[in-house]
């Protein structure tokens, strides 16, 4: 243990009743980028939860008298082509982004992990077949697979979540499988099998918890990707539909057409998307650094 004076340690000594504060400060000091990412995520979550209270206007209310107005006192970020307040739509849009992002990421990570772990556990023929099937899905570029699923299911938020989750499953499965393969060689797994525990129990109780680290990293990375993918799909008209507030939707049509004379319509939603995905990526990056022992600084 280093003897060099640490501000955090001094703080901890000074405020023993606030260990959580010490932990946070420590985190900020050691991983500033991760802290920045976490801050951005928190802002987004706060916006999503508090949209109802924070938004000055109804995101769906058209106001033709105030069409395409620049940022002013009444509308801090301006209005769009139907007179809808951009700020309100961005706040409510974070709800859509989080819902789709979390939904797709969780579904993708859950199914992907289960498949990956089970495949690693059973090994042999099962493993080979599952790998082949995953390879088939892998061979489709992400957006093409998502587009096809949308074509089958239709547009709309719920279908978009499934469409985005679909390409995520094989990617998660592959990563989790390699971690799970290492876990499978652990002696206590053999012991569990010898004791006659059911396969399902071993997978869920013993293997899965040990691969949580890569799963968590994957899920965080997926969240960012999912938000981007949703924005792309909405942008080309195959994602969430009007009049719902969604960031990708806000970038369509009039935002591009009027970009020269009314840039606020395109800049703010694009900024929102970038900051949100940026936050998730930064945080995920730091998470990966933290959980991967080889990369710690000396």
């Amino acid at each position: 243990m280093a003897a060099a004076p640490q501000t955090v340690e001094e703080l901890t000594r000074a405020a023993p009743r606030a260990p959580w504060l010490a932990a946070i400060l420590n985190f900020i000091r050691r991983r500033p980028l991760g802290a920045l990412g976490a801050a951005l995520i928190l802002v987004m979550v706060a916006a999503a939860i508090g949209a109802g209270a924070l938004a000055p206007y109804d995101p769906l209310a058209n106001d033709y008298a105030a069409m395409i107005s620049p940022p002013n006192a009444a509308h801090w970020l301006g209005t769009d082509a139907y007179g809808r307040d951009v700020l309100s739509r961005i706040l409510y849009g974070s709800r859509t982004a989080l819902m789709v992002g979390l939904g797709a990421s969780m579904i993708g990570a859950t199914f992907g992990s289960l498949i990956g772990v089970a495949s690693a556990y059973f090994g042999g023929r099962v493993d080979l077949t599952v790998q082949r099937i995953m390879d088939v899905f892998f061979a489709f570029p992400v957006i093409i697979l998502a587009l096809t699923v949308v074509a089958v299911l239709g547009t709309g938020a719920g279908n978009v979540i499934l469409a985005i989750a679909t390409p995520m499953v094989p990617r998660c499965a592959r990563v989790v499988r390699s971690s799970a393969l290492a876990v499978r060689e652990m002696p206590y797994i053999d012991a569990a099998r010898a004791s006659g525990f059911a396969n399902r129990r071993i997978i869920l109780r013993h293997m899965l918890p040990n691969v949580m680290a890569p799963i968590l990293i994957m899920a965080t990375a997926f969240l960012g990707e999912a938000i981007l993918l949703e924005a792309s799909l909405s942008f080309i008209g195959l994602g969430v539909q009007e009049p719902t507030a969604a960031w990708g939707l806000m970038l369509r049509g009039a935002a591009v057409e009027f970009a020269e004379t009314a840039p606020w319509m395109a800049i703010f939603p694009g900024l929102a998307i970038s900051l949100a995905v940026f936050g998730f990526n930064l945080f995920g990056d730091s998470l990966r650094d933290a959980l991967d022992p080889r990369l710690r600084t000396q």
Partner: protein
Amino acid sequence: MKLLWSSLAILASAMLVIPAQAQQPRHGGELIFPVPSEPPSYDGHREETFGLIHPIAPFYNTLLRVDPFDRTGTKPAPSLAQSWTVSKDGKTYTFKLHKGVKFHDGSEMTSKDVKASYDKIIFPPPGVGSSRKGQYADVEKVEAPDAYTVVFHLKNPSGSFIASLLSPYNFIYKADILAKDPHWYEKNIMGTGPFIFVEHVKGSHVVGRRNPNYWDKGKPYLDGFRAIFMNSSAAEVAAIRGERAHIQFRGFSPKDRDNLVAALGNKITVDESPWDCILLGAINHEKKPFDDPRVRRALTLALDRYEGSKALSQIAIVKEVAGVQVPGTPFATPPDELAKLAGYWHDAEKSRAEARRLLKEAGVPEGFSFTFKNRGIPMPYEPLGVWMIDQWRRVGLNVKQEVIEAAAYFGVIRKGDFEVAMDFQCGYIVEPDLDMYKFLSSDRNPANYGRYKDPVLDELYDKQSRSTNVAERKKLVREFEKRVLDEQAHYFMTLQWHRIVPHSSKVHGWTITPSHYLNNTLDTVWLSE
């Protein structure tokens, strides 16, 4: 001597007068225009997309054409037929053809070619697709008694038969080729038109060059044309703005027009016209509560079309408030009379109050929710959808929008799997027979997605179709309109599309019409320096 001086004087004054006349067309130059859609095949009888007309129509002629200088796009003019007569009973139309018209392979076009082409359109052989067959149900047979005469025999007199011959899709093909292979024209191009086919590079462009032996002497003025396929309107606008293209024949959005004018000043000329395209609301009469005419009337009363027109015309390609006919055309209802129909009242508050009252009377609760199905095409479906949902909210209807991908859309709507849905109608010519056909009872017209039967409406349609007296026809059209939009509110119209064509000021000889399928033969177009 006096004679010499007076002749010189006359000559001098003539020379002063000539510059005051319109510019003389200049020969030469290649017209370049982007086309947003590529033709699936080259056969005009089979396809329905303007993506065929824009690049391919210059290679062909039709029997008759719409007068290329008529802004309403309704006046018939001679093309391959130089004149025509109608029999007293209105059942026989005789056309006299130009002599000496040559196909691009050098052979002469005669009446047998016209007959073969129209036989293919009206009585297609098995396995051959003809999209407009239904339009000619009244035709009994087509005859070619001599080399330069074609006769159409109708079963009943019709006020719109000539209009049906003006279709820009009715290319005249060579009879010998059709006899050998009726599918030949799907993959090949060979006509009598002002331009000769040079090449078509898939995904890229179509090129045509001037036909030196064109039958209309002196035309075409252009040396050739190049149609470039571009997928996004942003690219098309950029091409015109960067002066890499001269004109786009379909239409741009109001903002694109403003950007172009701001960037190019008087190097750009803007032509505008109401468009013969409109989005209308199909109401499924088989789903409650839409079987109740009061509910349907409430839907149309809720829409403040005048405010909508003012606002949406700034961001979308819609503008005019219209009934069943394009405003400004011969059979359109004048605005003050139109304002008497439900949904067209100038007093929006009164209209909304009436809508609420009708809904209450029909037993529809406040906050009643239904799903509006819209088609997945951004312009102008999206802005109209957003507008309509907002207008319905103001009368207490909570409407959700479900957007269905364009290719799957009509399959869903035809099945009747909707409550209220966006329908769409585009025509090549403004003609009541064509524009009102949609509203006929669904057992007569499968393209009527509203699923209703209205014999009164059918009768009104037939009466106006048979009538050859223009004044009487107008009256019947008004009655039809009142019944379909107001009394029964079977369908409701949104706003008429508005065609905006900003083009290089070098382009002359092209007149805008309500139809983006007309005036694409390019024989009258010329480029100044």
